[in-house]
């Protein structure tokens, strides 16, 4: 005892640098979790150069890319469980970083430009705002909820960095921010550090929906996480103080001008936390509601056609916007993500019950996990509601599941099944994200040609794609075309109602040409791409032989003349319009 006292009181202070060396030695100490995560990083780095050149596959990048890529994803799941078992916070963060690298950074590094075709519609609005300093409120709904697009144009102006470069790097940057922010949220919501890291890993790695691309949804989600953190702060202190309320409302205003759906989820969350006596002041959700409804009313001219409530039928609202049956690979991927999502929700529910039985806090994370299902009572959101429900529910599910994972990782009997589940879930989520890699991957060439076609041709001209997918609106110029005719780029297989056609009969081709003839004497350009063939085949929109069959007929038809031909993009001019 004396020695101990003497040690504590009289021993000389540690030499400067000794503590740092000890910390460094501790950080570099090889543990099973750290070794696994280093192996994951090596596998990822080896696989990375080949991923951009992966051949077309209906089973996606995990099947077509290097097997080491799938191994690195599985190892990140294994690394997390081993880190939880050893309560190794550093290894836990390394697992999170590894997951961001494999699931988010890979997309940026393996592609030359933004991945999804629909990203370009967003970039076009930002481009228009940057060029004109105004929004084309008469054109489409994007210009009404233009918070992200105005900010991008603004940022692009002051940094000199193009919006397309920002969009290309958006995903890894935003997911890094989400990880740091969600860790802070979990800590505020009473999670110890290791459990908060596990929850962060779940939110990061199991988000298979892929809504972290350059989109208003993703930015609104980040802002909403900030508000959830502040709700947690208010919950901890008993009542949101005026400064905290000011922060909440500032972030809420930014969400309201950015995205149509997210404000209502935040309001629902605030309402449920208020009526359960967890959030004060009581009027907060009401003020948020007034703000959101006032903004909706101001922009009702563009929102009216979508309707306030699509239907009260929950099952119908939960249907996805992919109504067709795709190829076998698409069906397998769909099945995997259904099982994964259902598994996460079921596990979260069981964990909530387990917490309730053990008299641990469960109500607040349960509200966070399951409140988003409320969206299904009113909106299908164009068939995307179910994806948003999953995205919004993931943070709450992670808060419910993480403590159980931390506990199960400590027991010898449960650690092996837990490892199997963690590795399988990480790979399943990656399959959900990368399953449609060949179909979604938008070549840089198509983006360039699309912009060039709009630049080189006068208004009015119809620039129509035969079938999805094509970056049809990717520059400010689209506004001029859309003002003339909002359907200037309407996809012809939908106009002609020829989904599923092989284009191997005269009847099909005649129906196709009838749709073209609707353009009258207005110049018409028809776009056919190799990427369309893959996308439409993958999602069951057109059989694999449809596009070549159609092109063979176009090439024999004197009414068409090649306008631009590259190995992957063919553009034809309709001569009858002259």
């Amino acid at each position, binding site marked *: 005892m004396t020695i101990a006292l003497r040690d504590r009181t009289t021993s000389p202070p540690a030499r400067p640098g000794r503590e740092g060396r000890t910390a460094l030695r501790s950080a570099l100490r090889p543990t099973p979790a750290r070794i696994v995560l280093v192996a994951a990083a090596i596998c990822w780095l080896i696989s990375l150069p080949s991923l951009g050149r992966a051949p077309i596959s209906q089973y996606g990048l995990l099947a077509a890319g290097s097997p080491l890529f799938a191994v690195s994803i599985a190892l990140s799941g294994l690394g997390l469980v081993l880190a939880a078992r050893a309560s190794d916070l550093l290894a836990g963060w390394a697992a999170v970083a590894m997951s961001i690298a494999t699931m988010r950074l890979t997309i940026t590094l393996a592609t030359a430009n933004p991945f999804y075709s629909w990203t370009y519609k967003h970039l076009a609005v930002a481009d228009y*705002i940057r060029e*004109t*300093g*105004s*929004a084309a409120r008469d054109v489409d709904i994007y210009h009404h909820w*233009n*918070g*992200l697009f*105005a*900010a991008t*144009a*603004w*940022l692009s*102006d*002051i*940094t*000199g*960095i193009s919006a397309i470069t920002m969009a290309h790097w958006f995903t890894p940057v935003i997911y890094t*921010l989400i990880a*740091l*922010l969600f*860790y*802070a*949220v979990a*800590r*505020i919501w009473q999670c110890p550090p290791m459990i908060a890291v596990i929850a962060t890993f779940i939110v990061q790695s199991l988000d298979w929906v892929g809504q972290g691309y350059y989109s208003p949804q993703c*930015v609104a989600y*980040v*802002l909403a*996480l*900030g508000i959830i*953190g*502040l709700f*947690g*702060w208010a919950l901890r*202190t008993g009542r949101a*103080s005026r*400064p*905290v309320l000011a*922060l909440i409302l*500032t*972030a809420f*205003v*930014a969400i309201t*001008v*950015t995205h149509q759906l997210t404000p209502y989820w935040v309001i629902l969350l605030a309402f449920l936390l208020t009526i359960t006596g967890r959030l004060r002041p009581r009027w907060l959700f009401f003020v948020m509601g007034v703000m959101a409804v006032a903004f909706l009313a101001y922009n009702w001219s563009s929102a009216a056609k979508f309707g306030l409530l699509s239907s009260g039928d929950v099952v119908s609202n939960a249907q996805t916007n992919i109504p067709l049956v795709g190829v076998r690979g698409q069906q397998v991927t769909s099945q995997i993500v259904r099982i994964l999502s259902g598994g996460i929700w079921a596990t979260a529910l069981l964990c909530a019950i387990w917490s309730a039985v053990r008299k641990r806090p469960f109500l607040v994370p349960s509200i966070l996990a399951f409140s988003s299902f409320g969206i299904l009572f009113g909106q299908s959101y164009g068939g995307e509601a179910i994806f948003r429900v999953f995205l919004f529910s993931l943070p709450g599910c992670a808060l419910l599941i993480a403590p159980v994972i931390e506990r199960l990782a400590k027991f010898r009997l449960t650690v092996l099944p837990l490892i199997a589940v963690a590795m399988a879930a990480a790979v399943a989520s990656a399959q959900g994200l990368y399953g449609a890699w060949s179909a979604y991957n938008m070549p840089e060439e198509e983006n360039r040609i699309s912009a060039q076609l709009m630049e080189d041709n006068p208004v009015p001209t119809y620039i129509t794609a035969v079938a999805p997918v094509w970056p049809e609106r990717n520059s400010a110029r689209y506004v001029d075309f859309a003002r003339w005719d909002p359907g200037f780029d309407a996809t012809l297989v939908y106009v002609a109602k020829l989904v599923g056609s092989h284009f191997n009969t005269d009847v099909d081709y005649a129906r196709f040409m009838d749709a073209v003839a609707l353009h009258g004497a207005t110049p018409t350009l028809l776009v056919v791409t190799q990427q369309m063939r893959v996308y439409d085949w993958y999602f069951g929109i057109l059989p694999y032989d449809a596009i070549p069959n159609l092109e063979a007929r176009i090439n024999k038809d004197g009414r068409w003349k090649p306008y631009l031909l590259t190995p992957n993009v063919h553009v034809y001019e309709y001569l009858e319009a002259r």
Partner: protein
Amino acid sequence: MRSPMSVLTPYLRVGGNAHPMASLAVVSSVLGTLGLITPLPSLVRGPAALLYAFAGPGAAIMLWMPEVSGALRRTLVPVLSMAAMIIVSYLAVLQGLWHPQWQLALMIVATLASVAVFNVRNGRLPHPDRADGRTEEVLR
């Protein structure tokens, strides 16, 4: 006669006993001014202006929120900066006042003003008798 910058500098102290959020706001603001010099290559002004855009406004706001602490305090800096950027640019579009460089300049001025007022209010002032700029707080 002292230049305006030398008068302002003590109110915008960085490092030492300066508030970390104040230091972040001042450093990012100084770098953010590069965003105003459009002839600069984007390789130079891009990272500098990005740092301001994602740190400056949030740090200037969080400076006034001592009650929010820990990891949440730090991570709210980029979130609130994003919110500020969205609101400013949205209003600029709405009102037809699209002048990003001017708006950036105004935001930088507002950020620095926030820091200066904070330092004055919290007694982190330069001591009148001290040429080295040590603050009253330190001298007390």
